[in-house]
C-alpha cells in the first residue's frame, strides 16, 4: 500500500511532465512559421544583412534544442522576451537604450492581475450559486424547478458567450443603465469601482459556467442519492436535511471538487471572448490583439500562461479528489 504523499507526488510529477510537453508543443508550433522570427519581425522589406543581424541578436543561428531550452529557462524565470511591436518601435525610433524597451513580462503583469480579478469575481458568484441550484435540482428531480433549471442551462450552454454578453448588455447596461457596458479598469481604481466595472463581464462568465457546473453537480448528486446507504438513512427516518448534509455531502465532495476545478479551467477559454466584448484590459484581450498582428513572443507567452493555468487546475482537481476520497487515498 502506498502512502498519500507518494501518490500526490506522482501526480505532481505527471503535471510537471505535462507542462513541459505543452511548452514543447507551443515551441514546435511556432517553429512551423514560414521562414523564421527574424523574417517575421522585419516583414516585407527585409534585407539579407538585417535578417542575419537580428538572427544573431536573437540567437536563431543556434540549434533547435539549445534554443528550446533557453526559451523554456527564460520563460520559467518570467522572461518572455520583447514583443515584435515594441521591437519595431524601438528600431524605428532609435530607442537603442534598453531601458525604454518594455518586455512582454511587463506588458503581461498588470493584465494578468486584471484577468485573475475577473475570474475570481466570476468564480465567487458562480461556485456557490451553481452548487445550490445543482443540489436543489437533484433533490427535487423532475419537479418544475428542475425543468426550469434544465431548459435554462441547456439554452445558456448552447449560446455563444458573446450572445449572452450582448443580451446582458442590452438589459443591464442599455435599457436599464445599472452597470457600465465597457470595463474601464485602471491602476488607481478603488475596490468598489473596480468591482462595479468588472461585474457585467463576470456575470456573463457566471451564466456560462453555472450552466455546466450545475448540470454536473446535479448528475453527481443524483448518482449518489441512488446508492443503497442513502435509502437506508431515509428508511431510518432521518430528516432530509440530515441525509443530505451528513450522509450525502461528504461523499459528494470529490465529484463536486472535480466539477469546480474543471469549470474554472473552462473559465479560461471563456475569458478570452468576454474580455474582447467588454474591452476588458486582461490577458485574453492582449492575446487576441497579438494574434491579429502576429506578434509571436506575446502569443507564445499568453498561450503558455493559459495552458499552464489549465494544466494546473486539472492537476488541482486530481489531487483534491484523491485527498477527499478514502478509496483513492488507500489504494489496494
Amino acid at each position: 500500500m502506498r502512502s498519500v504523499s507518494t501518490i500526490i507526488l506522482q501526480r505532481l510529477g505527471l503535471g510537471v511532465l505535462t507542462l513541459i510537453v505543452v511548452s514543447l508543443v507551443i515551441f514546435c508550433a511556432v517553429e512551423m512559421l514560414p521562414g523564421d522570427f527574424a523574417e517575421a519581425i522585419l516583414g516585407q522589406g527585409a534585407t539579407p544583412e538585417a535578417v542575419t543581424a537580428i538572427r544573431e541578436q536573437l540567437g536563431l543561428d543556434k540549434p533547435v534544442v539549445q534554443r528550446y531550452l533557453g526559451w523554456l529557462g527564460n520563460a520559467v524565470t518570467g522572461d518572455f522576451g520583447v514583443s515584435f511591436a515594441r521591437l519595431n518601435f524601438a528600431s524605428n525610433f532609435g530607442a537603442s537604450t534598453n531601458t525604454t524597451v518594455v518586455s512582454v513580462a511587463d506588458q503581461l503583469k498588470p493584465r494578468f492581475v486584471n484577468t485573475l480579478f475577473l475570474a475570481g469575481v466570476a468564480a465567487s458568484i458562480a461556485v456557490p450559486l451553481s452548487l445550490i441550484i445543482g443540489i436543489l435540482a437533484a433533490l427535487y428531480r423532475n419537479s418544475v424547478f428542475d425543468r426550469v433549471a434544465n431548459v435554462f442551462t441547456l439554452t445558456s450552454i448552447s449560446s455563444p458567450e458573446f450572445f449572452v454578453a450582448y443580451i446582458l448588455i442590452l438589459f443591464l447596461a442599455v435599457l436599464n443603465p445599472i452597470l457600465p457596458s465597457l470595463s474601464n479598469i485602471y491602476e488607481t481604481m478603488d475596490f468598489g469601482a473596480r468591482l462595479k466595472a468588472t461585474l457585467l463581464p463576470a456575470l456573463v462568465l457566471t451564466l456560462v459556467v453555472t450552466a455546466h457546473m450545475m448540470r454536473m453537480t446535479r448528475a453527481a448528486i443524483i448518482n449518489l442519492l441512488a446508492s443503497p446507504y442513502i435509502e437506508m438513512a431515509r428508511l431510518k427516518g432521518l430528516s432530509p436535511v440530515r441525509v443530505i448534509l451528513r450522509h450525502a455531502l461528504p461523499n459528494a465532495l470529490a465529484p463536486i471538487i472535480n466539477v469546480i476545478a474543471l469549470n474554472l479551467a473552462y473559465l479560461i477559454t471563456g475569458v478570452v471572448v468576454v474580455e474582447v466584448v467588454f474591452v476588458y484590459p486582461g490577458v485574453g484581450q492582449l492575446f487576441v490583439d497579438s494574434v491579429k498582428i502576429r506578434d509571436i513572443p506575446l502569443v507564445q507567452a499568453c498561450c503558455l500562461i493559459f495552458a499552464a493555468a489549465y494544466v494546473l487546475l486539472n492537476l488541482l482537481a486530481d489531487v483534491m479528489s484523491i485527498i477527499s476520497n478514502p478509496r483513492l487515498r488507500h489504494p489496494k
Partner: protein
Amino acid sequence: MAIALWRALLIGGVLWLAAMMLPPLMSGGWDGLVAAASQQRLVRTIFWISVVLLIATIVSWVFRELLRRTMPEVIAKPMRHAPLTASFGLMIILLYVIVSVGAPWIAPYGEAEIFTKINVLPGGDPELGGDPSHFLGTDQIGRDILSRLIYGARNTVGIAFLTTMLSFLIGVTLGFLAATLGGWIDQGLSRGIDVLMAIPQLIFALLLMTIASEWSYRSGISLTWFMIVIIAVLDSTRVFRLARAVGLNIVVMDYIEAARVRGETLLHIVFKEILPNAFSPLLAEFGLRFCFVFLTIASLSFLGIGIQPPLADWGTMVRDLSQFINFAAYDPLTAALPLMAAGAIALLTVAVNFVVDWMLQNSSGLKE
C-alpha cells in the same frame, strides 16, 4: 415531457419577469417600477415572448403532425413518439438547410455586392433614413445586411459542417485503427491525443491561427481553409476518444474475429465491420461535436480571426454590428441587428441539442 417543458418555460418566464422588475424596483422603489412599466417596454416584451413561444409550439406541433401523416413510414414512425422539442429542433434544422442551400435564390442581393448608400438604417422607411430596397439596411461599406444574414447561413453552417465531417473522418479513422491494431500504435496515438487535449482548444486554435495567417499571407490561400483544417484536427481529438472507446467494445466481438480469420484487409474490418455497428453513438456525437465546432468557429470569427471577408458570416457580423446595441432605447430594430446574427447561431445550437437529446434518449431506451 413536452407539457412539463412548456410549463417550465412559463414559470421561467414568470421568474424572468420578477428579475426584470427587480432593477427598477430597487433603483426607484414602487414609483420606479410603475415608471418602467408605463414605458410599456416590459409589457410589450412579455407579450412578444409569449407570442413567439405560442407560435413555436403550434408550428412544431403542426410540423410533427405533417411528418406523421404525409411522410413514408421510415420517418413517420419515430415521429409518433417524438416530443415537441425534437420536432421543433428538426424543423429549425430543416429551415437552416433550406436557407443555406437556397441562399442565392432567397437573398435579394449578392453577399459581397456593395451599394453606394452606406449605413442605411433598417426598417425601410425613407423618412427615418431607411431604404425600401434594403429592409435591414446596409453595413459600414454598403452591403445589404439581409442578404448577408442569409448568406451567413450558408457560410457559417456550411463551413462548420465541413469541419465536423473532416474532424470525424480523422478522428473515427484513427480511433478505429487504434482500437483494432492496439499495442504501440494505440499507445502512441492515445498519448499524442492526450498532449493535444492538455491545451485548451480555443487557446491552441488562436496560436495555430497566428502561424497559419503567416502561411496564408505567403501562399495566398485563404485563411478560412487553414481554419477548417486546424479546428478539424483539434476537434478530432474528442472524436478519437469516443471512436476508440466504442471500437474497443466492438473488436472483441465474434464477427470481427471471423472477419480476421477470413483474411479480410484492415480497411474492410474498419469500415465494413466496425463502422456500421458504431454508427448510432457516433451520429449522436456528430450532433454535439457540430455544436462545439459551430460555436468555436463563430467565436473565432467574432474575434476577427475566423472566416475571412468577403465571405459573410454571423460571428463577424455580430462584431461589426455590435455598437448598434447602444441604440436600443430609441430604435429597437437597429439594436436587434447584432442580436439577430448571434441569435441565429444560438437557435441552431439549441435546435441540434434538442434533437440530440431525443436521439440519446431513444438509443438508451430511457422512455418516459
